[in-house]
């Protein structure tokens, strides 16, 4: 009797170990196959890597300006010769992110209630809203921007709308997930007092979800500033167009000057948003 149990245990264990080994081997084979195919399709070779990397470091070196301590002011002046022009473009870039985030938040806010399972009983509505948000999220901003440049012409308006649509998709989904975590008790309470749908949203849901919404919005704004900086690659406004021009024309020191300004701006905005987030909702609720 007891030896039966031991034997049963041993065979089961051997089976499990064998199954795990088979699985690991299978993953290994699939991984190696994917790697081999990718190397061929991706046109990768050690030779290209060996010649490419030194050229990349040489490229980076060439973008660095010659600065000497004796003539630092003049050197910096020559490096950032178009400082004011670039600053204006950076300002436009931030405005694009700001307007796009605002529009995206408005759209995402409205749709998030339709996409929340606990608020809308009709499966057609919340599935429809979910799929729509999914589509907006999956299409990259740059693709929307390509379309909108055709429809709205070159310039920031196309960029704003492209980033706004993508933001709507991302935030709508995140907001809907927050909505679904609202405690049922507060909803029941408002419903029991005879509230209509919009009153349930206003008094039962919004007070609970607002801190989460604000936090996600600020995070998204940071991301959108980055997106707005490259949306100009397809002619949709901001500093991207200038950046693409100097890279394509090999104006080396301008590349590093613009990128440096961009990095500092993005870092400052990240810092500001983080401060604001902590002040608005406190460090506890971030976890």
């Amino acid at each position: 009797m007891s030896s039966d149990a031991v034997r049963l245990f041993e065979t089961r264990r051997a089976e499990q170990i064998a199954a795990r080994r088979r699985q690991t081997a299978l993953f290994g084979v699939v991984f190696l196959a994917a790697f081999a195919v990718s190397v061929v399709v991706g046109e990768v070779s050690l030779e290209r890597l060996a010649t490419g990397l030194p050229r990349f470091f040489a490229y980076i070196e060439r973008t660095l300006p010659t600065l000497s301590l004796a003539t630092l002011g003049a050197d910096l002046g020559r490096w950032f010769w178009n400082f004011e022009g670039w600053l204006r473009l950076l300002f436009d870039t931030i405005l694009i992110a700001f307007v796009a985030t605002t529009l995206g938040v408005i759209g995402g806010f409205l749709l998030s209630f339709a996409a929340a399972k606990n608020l809308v009983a009709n499966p057609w509505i919340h599935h429809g809203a979910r799929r729509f948000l999914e589509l907006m999220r999956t299409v990259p901003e740059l693709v929307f921007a390509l379309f909108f440049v055709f429809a709205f012409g070159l310039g920031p308006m196309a960029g704003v709308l492209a980033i706004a649509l993508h933001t709507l998709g991302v935030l709508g989904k995140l907001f809907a997930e927050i909505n679904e975590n609202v405690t049922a008790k507060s909803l029941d309470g408002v419903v029991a007092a005879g509230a209509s749908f919009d009153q349930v949203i206003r008094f039962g849901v919004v007070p609970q979800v607002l801190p989460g919404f604000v936090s996600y919005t600020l995070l998204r704004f940071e991301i959108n500033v980055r997106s707005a900086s490259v949306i100009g690659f397809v002619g949709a406004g901001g500093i991207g167009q200038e950046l693409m021009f100097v890279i394509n024309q090999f104006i080396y020191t301008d590349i590093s000057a613009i990128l440096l300004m961009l990095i500092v701006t993005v870092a400052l905005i990240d810092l500001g948003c983080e401060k604001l987030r902590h002040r608005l909702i406190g460090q506890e609720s971030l976890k």
Partner: protein
Amino acid sequence: MSRPDSTRIAALAARYPGTIYAPPGQLWGRRAVVAGFFVAFLWASDHLGMSFARLLQGLQDLGIVASMMVPPTSAGFFWDYVHALGETLAMAFLGTLLASLASIPLGFLGARNVVANPVIHFGLRRVLDVIRGVDSLVWALIFVSVVGLGPFAGILAIALNDTGVLAKMYAEAIEGADRKASEGVAAAGGSKADIARLAIFPQVFPVFLSNSLYFFEANTRSATILGVVGAGGIGFFLADRIRVNAWSDVCFIILLILPTVALIDYLSRFLRERAIGVEPPAEALSR
């Protein structure tokens, strides 16, 4: 919801100031912030050249585009599209793989509890900040001018950009690892390398794996657009077909991209739950 008698509310509000209505200072402060935000939004929209007239005109154009999209056609380019899509996946796969491999040693070097020298980890963290601060599309553009057009530039761009993010995340995971295991290995006479290999690595490996898988998913999305700047993949065809207004081809390409991205999302989520040892919830599988 019918309100209670308004005179009673007024009486209560007068007796307990700050409970029913916010104190006037706070109320007007909040209104000022909202009004300021609204004015800023309108000014920014106007500054960026946005207007309802342009919006309506553009929407009309988009309607025309949408009508020209059906029926989607490949115009004999089907296998070229499939190959380009394969390039996109290969770029995401190899880029993520390269970045993950490079991030393991960099993560250890950047972790305060492994490398005691503050100069090394502070310097490394700042270099990573700069790499991360530049969008992968910018890196792609730079790599196109360094190694030429094609997917190889895209792979390097993804690898470099992700190294900036992953190495930082890995370093943070290593810093958050339980120190007792390290002390145990040290007490048993282990060297620094032994501690890294035997005490820290087993703790952080699942985190590494799950992050890398998540990045593969995200990179598949971003790799679809790297072709816009000539760095290989389906983005090249997409941007090209939009530029020549071949809308039914555009529709076909988008219909190819969306299910591919969804498939990779599903695969990555599945593997991620495998890697951290959690059974995938039924909800994730049904999506």
